[in-house]
C-alpha cells in the first residue's frame, strides 16, 4: 500500500515536470498536508462607538451637514460604525482651528515641550497597540499579523522617531534656520490607515506645523481612535484636527486658502489633480503616488529566499501597496525553477478571515477595489497573458481575491504598465543586465524596485540604475521611521521618513 502511493506520487511528479518543460526541480514541501486550526484574534475587547463625529479644535463635533456614512468590515460586509461627512463649513472650521493653534500655541511652544507631546502620543499608541491592531484589521481587511506586527508598531515608532527631531531641527538643515510652514492639510489612503496618519502627523508636528488630516472613507476608524489618544494626550486643542469624508472633502481642503501645505498619499491620477489645484498658489506640496515596481531575480540569487521576497513583494497587504513588486523580472536561465517554486508557494497561502493569525492574505479593502482587480484580471487574459491562481477556499461573505500571477506578459500589456493595487503579479523574463534595467525603468512610475542576486557589485550596479526612490536588495517591503520613502517621476515628490522627511514641512 505505501509502495503504491509512492509510485503514484512519483509518476505525477514526472508528468508535471514534463508539462512545465523544466529541469527536475524537487517540489518544495510546505506541510500542506496539515490543516491549520482557526486561531482568530479576539475582537471582544473592542468597543466601537455607534457613530463618530469630526475631531476639530480638540473636541468631537457634529458635522454641519448632519450627514454620516457607514464604514463596514470588508471581510464580513457588516457595518462597524458610521462617521461624519465633513462639508466646506467643517473644513473651514478645522483649518481655522489649526491656524489658531499654530499662532497661539504651537509655533511659540519651546521645541523640547513639543517633542514631549509627540513622545506621549507614541507611548499611548504602544499602550493600546492591541486595540489599534484589531480595529485596523476590522475596518480595512488587512491580516491581524500585519496590523499587529507592522502597521501599529511602525506607527508608534514613527511618532517616537520624529518626536526627537523637534528640538534638533537646526542640525538637520546645515547653515539654515528651519521654520514651520503653518497649517498642513493631509490626505491619506486606505491601505495603511494608521501608519499613514503617523507618517503625516508626526513630522508635521515635530517641525512646528498644525494639522488637518482626512483619512480615507473606507478606513476612518483608527484615525478617529488616534484622535481620542490625541485628546487624552493633552495636545493643545486645534493642533491636530481629523475630519472624515469622501474625495470632495479632500478637495475642499486642497482648495482652502488657509492651508499652507498639502501632503497627499494616493493614486497618481488624483495626485495630478491636486498638483493642478494648487498651481499658482504658494502652497507647498508633497505627493506620494502610485507605483509599478520591478522585482528583479538574477540566476545567481538565493532562489528560495527570492521566492519569499516575491511573495512578500506582491501579496503583502493583499497587494494594496503603492511600492508592491507587481512586475517580476526573472532571468531566463532560472525562469522555470522560479515559476515552479512560486506556484508551489502560492498554493500554500491562506486567504480568509483577516483576524485569524494564520491568514496570509486578508480581505480586499472594498467592493469597488475588488471590481478594479477583477477588471484587470480580465484585461490580462484578453491581452494574451497566461493566468494562474491558487485554489484555496474563500469565506462565503466579504471581498476576497486569491493570489494571481500572469506569465507570458508583454512589456506593453496594461497589467505590466498600470497599477492594479491588488494581489496580481505580472511576470516577464530577461537575459542581460542591460535588458532588465531598460525594462524595469520603462514605466512612468518610479517608487520602488527590488534586486535579487548574490553578487555585491551587481547589486549596486542595479540599485544605482533603478529610477526609483526605494530599492530593496535581497529583501522587499521593509519600512522604518528612519528610512526615507518616496518616488521618482510620476510616483510623486518629497520624502516621508528619516531626516529627509523633515523638509516637506519646513521652509529654510
Amino acid at each position, binding site marked *: 500500500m505505501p509502495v503504491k502511493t509512492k509510485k503514484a506520487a512519483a509518476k505525477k511528479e514526472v508528468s508535471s515536470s514534463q508539462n512545465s518543460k523544466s529541469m527536475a526541480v524537487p517540489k518544495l514541501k510546505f506541510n500542506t498536508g496539515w490543516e491549520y486550526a482557526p486561531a482568530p484574534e479576539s475582537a471582544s475587547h473592542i468597543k466601537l462607538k455607534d457613530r463618530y463625529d469630526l475631531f476639530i479644535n480638540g473636541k468631537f463635533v457634529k458635522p454641519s451637514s448632519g450627514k454620516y456614512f457607514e464604514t463596514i468590515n470588508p471581510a464580513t460586509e457588516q457595518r462597524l460604525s458610521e462617521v461624519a461627512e465633513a462639508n466646506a463649513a467643517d473644513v473651514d472650521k478645522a483649518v481655522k482651528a489649526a491656524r489658531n493653534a499654530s499662532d497661539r500655541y504651537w509655533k511659540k511652544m519651546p521645541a523640547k515641550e513639543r517633542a514631549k507631546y509627540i513622545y506621549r502620543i507614541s507611548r499611548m499608541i504602544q499602550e493600546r497597540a492591541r486595540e489599534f491592531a484589531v480595529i485596523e484589521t476590522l475596518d480595512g481587511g488587512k491580516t491581524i499579523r500585519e496590523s499587529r506586527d507592522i502597521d501599529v508598531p511602525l506607527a508608534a515608532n514613527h511618532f517616537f522617531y520624529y518626536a526627537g527631531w523637534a528640538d534638533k531641527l537646526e542640525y538637520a538643515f546645515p547653515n539654515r534656520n528651519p521654520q514651520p510652514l503653518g497649517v498642513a492639510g493631509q490626505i491619506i489612503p486606505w491601505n495603511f490607515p494608521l501608519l499613514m496618519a503617523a507618517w503625516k502627523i508626526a513630522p508635521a508636528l515635530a517641525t512646528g506645523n498644525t494639522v488637518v488630516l482626512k483619512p480615507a472613507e473606507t478606513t476612518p476608524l483608527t484615525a478617529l481612535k488616534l484622535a481620542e489618544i490625541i485628546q487624552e494626550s493633552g495636545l493643545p486643542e486645534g493642533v491636530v484636527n481629523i475630519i472624515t469624508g469622501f474625495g470632495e472633502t479632500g478637495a475642499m481642503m486642497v482648495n482652502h486658502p488657509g492651508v499652507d501645505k498639502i501632503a497627499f498619499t494616493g493614486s497618481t491620477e488624483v495626485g*495630478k489633480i491636486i498638483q493642478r489645484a494648487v498651481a499658482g498658489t504658494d502652497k507647498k506640496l508633497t505627493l506620494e503616488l502610485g507605483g509599478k515596481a520591478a522585482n528583479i531575480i538574477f540566476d545567481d540569487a538565493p532562489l528560495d529566499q527570492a521566492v519569499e521576497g516575491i511573495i512578500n513583494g506582491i501579496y503583502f497587504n493583499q497587494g494594496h501597496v503603492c511600492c508592491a513588486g507587481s512586475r517580476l523580472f526573472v532571468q531566463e536561465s532560472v525562469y522555470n525553477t522560479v515559476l515552479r517554486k512560486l506556484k508551489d508557494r502560492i498554493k500554500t497561502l491562506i486567504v480568509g478571515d483577516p483576524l485569524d493569525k494564520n491568514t496570509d492574505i486578508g480581505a480586499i479593502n472594498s467592493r469597488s477595489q475588488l471590481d478594479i482587480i477583477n477588471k484587470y484580471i480580465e484585461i490580462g487574459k484578453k491581452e494574451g497573458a497566461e493566468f494562474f491562481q491558487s485554489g484555496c477556499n474563500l469565506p462565503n461573505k466579504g471581498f476576497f481575491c486569491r493570489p494571481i500571477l500572469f506569465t507570458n506578459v508583454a512589456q506593453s500589456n496594461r497589467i505590466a504598465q498600470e497599477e492594479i493595487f491588488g494581489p496580481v503579479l505580472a511576470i516577464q523574463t530577461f537575459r542581460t543586465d542591460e535588458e532588465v534595467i531598460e525594462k524595469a525603468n520603462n514605466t512612468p512610475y518610479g517608487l520602488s524596485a527590488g534586486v535579487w542576486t548574490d553578487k555585491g557589485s551587481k547589486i549596486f550596479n542595479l540599485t544605482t540604475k533603478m529610477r526609483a526612490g526605494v*530599492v530593496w536588495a*535581497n529583501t522587499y517591503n*521593509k519600512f*522604518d521611521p528612519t528610512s526615507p520613502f518616496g518616488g521618482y*517621476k*510620476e*510616483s510623486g515628490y518629497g520624502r516621508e521618513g528619516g531626516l*529627509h522627511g523633515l523638509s516637506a514641512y519646513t521652509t*529654510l
Partner: protein
Amino acid sequence: MDFRLIQHFNPFFTVVKQNRNMAKALEKNSNITISENGIEQPVSNKRLEVLKTYKIYIGGQFPRTESGRYYVATNSKGEQLANVCLSSRKDFRDAVVAARSAFKGWAARAAFNRGQILYRIAEMLEGRKAQFIEELISQDVSKAQAQKEVLTSIDRLIWYAGWCDKFQQIFGTVNPVASSHFNFSVPEPTGVVAAIAPQDTSLLGLVSVIAPIIAGGNTCIVLASESKPLCSITFAEVINSSDVPGGVVNILTGRVSELATQFASHMDVNAVVYCGEDANVQKDLQTKGATNVKRVIVHKNINWFGEQGQSPYFILDTEEIKTTWHPIESIGGGGGGY
C-alpha cells in the same frame, strides 16, 4: 502684385534693413564707419569687424532655429544689437532629445569629474571676461555692474564646482533602521530639467541656474533672458570649450510666453525651474507640469548677486533621494560583533 507689397513681405529685404541698423549701433561701440548703402568706408584703413551670428546651442552644436524665425535684440535706446533666434517648440523638443541622451553619461560621471568640468567652465569664462563685460555694457548694464556680474559669475561656477562631490555627503544619510539591514539614502539627479533664466541678470542669472542643475548630474535646456539674450550664446561658446559633453547644457533664445507651456507639458522633462515673478507663467508651469508630475521650482525675487543667489539647497531642488536596503547577516545568532 504691387511691388511695395513684395518689398514689405520680402524677408531678405527686412534682414538687410535691420543688419544695416545693427551695424550702425555697433559702429558706435567699435569705431567703424558704415555708409548708407551698407558698404564700409575705409575712413582710417580700419578693418571691418566680423559680426557674430547669434545661434542657439543644442546637443553641443550651434544650429539656427529650425523655424527660421528671429527677433531683434535692442538696447534701451532701441538700437538693434543682433538678430537672435526665436526658438520654436521644435527646437525645444530637439533640445530635450539631446539632453535626455546626454543624461545617462553625465549622471554616470564621477562627481569629482563633474567638479573639474565646472571649474573648467569658470577658467574659460575668466579668459573671456572682456567680451562678456562688453556685451553686458551693450545691453545697458553699467561698466561697474557688468564687471561685477562677470566676476561673480566666475566665482559662482567655482563655488558650485566645489559642491559637485560634497553635497552628497551633506544631504545623504546612513539610516539606523531597527531591523538587521544596511540602509542609506543618497541624492541622485532627477533627469532632464527645463529652466527659464532670470531676465535682468542675463549672465549671472543664467550661470546661477545652470550650475546647480548640472553640478547635481542633471542635463538641462535653458531659455535665456528674452530682453538681454547676447551673453547666453556667448556663454554657450564657453561651455562648448569646457569639456562639457554635448547635450548636457542646451541654450535657447526666444519668448517665455511661447515656450513656458512647452517646457511644462513635455513628457520627457522631469523638472522645470522658473526664475521670475510673473504669476501667470508660474501658474501655467505648475498646472501643465502636473501632466507627468514634474517638479516645479520657482525662484522669486532673488538677488543673484548676494548670498541668496547660491545655495547647495538649489542643487537639492533637482535631486531625488534614493534609499537602498540590504540585509545584514547576523553571524552567531545576532548580538554584538566585536
